[in-house]
């Protein structure tokens, strides 16, 4: 006598994209250890061959010293924006500072504003004033720093604006910035001394070791370097700019992080090419797509794709051939 049907044992319809008909057919010998050993040897030989023939890229890093020596005017102009608080870093917002109204949003939600400032950066102090204070006592520089830091913000702005206009037409001659005389207050002295300090290599050390002897955090010097155009020009020459498929590439003719192609793709197409919220929107899209990939087995339309495109017939062609060869269709 059969048991009455209950929700627990009631037969449900077989769904080919979810269920399987269990295998009652033939089993064949299979040496899993041998297979892995062979696979490892193949990978080892491939990696050895690629390493011997192609090696790996190791383009030297940009330092404040190399930047200020190769492009002293770009360095000086960037340093001035750090002092004036108008550089990309100075106006970035969280997690570096609390500049209002610049955070990226997804609809009404700004995740970076919610989290707030975690790596505080004051570009005027961190990149210009504090490093200058580490230089050996120089009465002229000491007076210049004191004059700048005791001035009103409006006066500071007048000086930095005037010197910014002068730097646009400046020249660099015999290791010195040459500008027309003007009402720059102490700013010309400070930026000139900082440029000299940078070209000597002293600013690299001052930025990294500002807090402790063993430094591994390069946030401040990297933000400073990235605010200039020197590193971006080097990257453009290596086809690494955002509109050149950006960070998925690598210097030289190496494949780089090709697995980031989908993430990088969004930055090549509107509206992300012009949106001020591009980063937040691209990440939101990638999170959704990743979640969809994880959840493929639960998505009725998506999980049916393999059965409908029938590529599986290529993968299991021997199996289907053997089925067709048997009169009763069993394996």
């Amino acid at each position: 006598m059969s048991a009455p049907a209950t929700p627990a044992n009631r037969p449900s319809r077989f769904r080919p994209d979810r269920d399987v008909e269990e295998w009652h057919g033939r089993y064949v010998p299979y040496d899993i250890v041998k297979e892995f050993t062979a696979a490892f040897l193949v990978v080892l030989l491939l990696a050895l061959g690629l390493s011997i023939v192609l090696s790996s890229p190791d383009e030297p890093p940009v330092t404040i010293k190399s930047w200020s020596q190769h492009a002293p005017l770009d360095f000086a102009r960037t340093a001035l924006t750090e002092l004036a608080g108008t550089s990309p870093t100075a106006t970035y917002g969280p997690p570096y500072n609390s500049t209002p109204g610049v955070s990226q949003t997804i609809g009404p939600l700004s995740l970076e504003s919610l989290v707030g400032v975690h790596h505080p950066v004051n570009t005027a102090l961190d990149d210009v004033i504090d490093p200058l204070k580490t230089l050996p006592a120089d009465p002229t520089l000491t007076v210049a720093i004191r004059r700048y830091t005791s001035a009103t913000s409006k006066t500071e702005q007048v000086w930095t604006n005037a010197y910014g206009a002068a730097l646009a037409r400046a020249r660099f001659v015999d290791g010195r910035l040459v500008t027309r005389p003007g009402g720059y207050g102490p700013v010309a002295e400070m930026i000139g001394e900082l440029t000299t300090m940078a070209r000597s290599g002293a600013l690299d050390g001052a930025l990294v070791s500002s807090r402790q002897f063993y430094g591994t955090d390069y946030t401040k010097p990297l933000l400073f370097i990235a605010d200039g155009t020197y590193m971006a020009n080097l990257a453009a020459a290596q086809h690494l700019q955002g509109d050149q498929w950006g960070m998925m590439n690598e210097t030289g003719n190496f494949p780089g992080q090709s697995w980031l192609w989908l993430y990088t793709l969004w930055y090549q197409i509107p509206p992300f090419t012009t949106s001020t919220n591009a980063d937040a929107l691209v990440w939101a899209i990638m999170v959704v797509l990743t979640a969809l990939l994880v959840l493929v087995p639960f998505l009725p339309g998506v999980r049916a794709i393999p059965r409908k495109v029938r590529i599986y017939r290529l993968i299991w062609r021997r199996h289907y051939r053997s089925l067709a060869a048997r009169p009763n269709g069993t394996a």
Partner: protein
Amino acid sequence: MTVDAGGPGLAAQADLPEDAAQWSARLRRAGVSAFPPGRLLPDRQPAYVASWIYVFGALTLAALALVVLSGIVLAIEGPTWWHLSRVGLFVNSMHLWSVELFFFFMVVHLWGKFFMAAWRGRRRATWITGVLAFVISIAAAFTGYLSQQNFDSQWIGTQAKDGINATGAGAFFNVLNFGQMLMWHILLLPLAVGLLTLVHVLLVRRRGVVPPFAPDPGDLVVPDGAGTAGDIGVDGTVGR
């Protein structure tokens, strides 16, 4: 008087009735039940497993092993070694190319499993752990690029910071902090990839390789709760 510190005698005693409730004994029974030796290290496989696409799972694991081995050598010598030594540069090249091969094999493996609908028959967790291992591997490789201490690291870090900051994660995952990225690269993310890979492989061993689509599955009926994919070719039920 001596004390027997182990050996087969103790193992046999653990199965005595009075020990049945032991946590250790329960764990061992569950382990042996889920992974009998023949399933953990099989010497037979279903005849339908006959395609080159199946090789890419083993190739992915082999490439991961080489990534770890070359990474261990780099870790032993320290982060600046490969910039100053020809041998170091070669080991770094082995690390780079084994990573490139790892991703190539893994992507082929993933697409192969997609077109086999390899989540069928209670294999959804196998699919999910595989995809998660892929995603975490991307993060592991990304932190590797950030840990190189060269122009690529600088450029990738300064470009990537905007995206990560936009999610709010930049507060805790600072791509411009070399020390933090190195720790993520050589400890936290490899640990996550290793654990996910282990679970993924164990699930493959437990559930078996997904059977082919039936030629005409529309008329088949499956009772709820009957059978598991682990029962392949054993009890003849249809799993879910």
